[in-house]
């Protein structure tokens, strides 16, 4: 995990292997950062759920081992903006379609209305964007009090 305090807004970044076992790590990170940056307990819990959904969307149907999953939290005036991106391996073209070697785990072929629909239901400003590396990303803003707790 890194924290950029050199200039501009406070930003935390976590990068993990894009494998399902790491989704719990992402939830811990998102919950802790949300609370630290002034989100309410309820909003922090919603952020954990949204992050879990975004991670699942990024992993299902793609190569489970390549590249990384990047989670960035950036403080804005009245929110913490989380951006979750599936980054391809270094040296590859982020615009190129990735390998699709993994199927959903057995029993999960019929996924309920979920994933991005859940993230959008939780946070109305949810966007699918390209992050700073050009990788496809899901971004959502979690309301926060104006001051960052020390």
């Amino acid at each position, binding site marked *: 995990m890194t924290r950029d305090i050199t200039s501009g807004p406070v930003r935390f970044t976590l990068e993990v292997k894009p494998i*399902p076992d790491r*989704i*719990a790590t992402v939830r811990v990170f998102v919950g802790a950062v949300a609370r630290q940056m002034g989100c309410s307990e309820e909003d922090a819990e919603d952020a954990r*759920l949204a992050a879990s959904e975004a*991670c699942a969307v990024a992993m299902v149907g793609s190569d489970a081992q390549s590249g990384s999953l990047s989670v960035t939290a950036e403080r804005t005036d009245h929110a913490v903006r989380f951006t979750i991106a599936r980054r391809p391996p270094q040296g590859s073209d982020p615009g190129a379609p990735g390998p699709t070697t993994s199927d959903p*785990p057995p*029993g*999960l072929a*019929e996924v309920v209305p979920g994933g991005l629909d859940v993230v959008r239901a939780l946070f109305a400003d949810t966007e699918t964007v390209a992050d700073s590396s050009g990788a496809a990303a899901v971004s959502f803003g979690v309301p926060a009090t104006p001051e960052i707790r020390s």
Partner: protein
Amino acid sequence: MRAIELVLETETRGSWAVLSIGGEVDLSNAFKLSDALLDLADNGHPRVVLNLADITFMDSTGLGALVTSLKKIKEKQGTLVLAAVPQQVERLLDITGLSEVFATSETVDDAVGA
């Protein structure tokens, strides 16, 4: 960090099988939940109570496992009741519009009619 442990325990209460699960359910382990439910249904227990009291987190992949299991249990003329549904899971059921799909009960005792 190791993968999350999903704790699963089964007991029989009259004509009901009660599956109690604890921990967090997500993409990494949701298949274990559907496997356990379908094992019960396949082994002579068409009436199943899923005790969610010790679940601390579930996302839509967990709900996907429940929907898949419910469908297969119903194909066997069985019943699946969710008992002691935590607030976080209730919220997810509401968001996904699945609140009306599942039979729910406040406690396991209520579900099995004790």
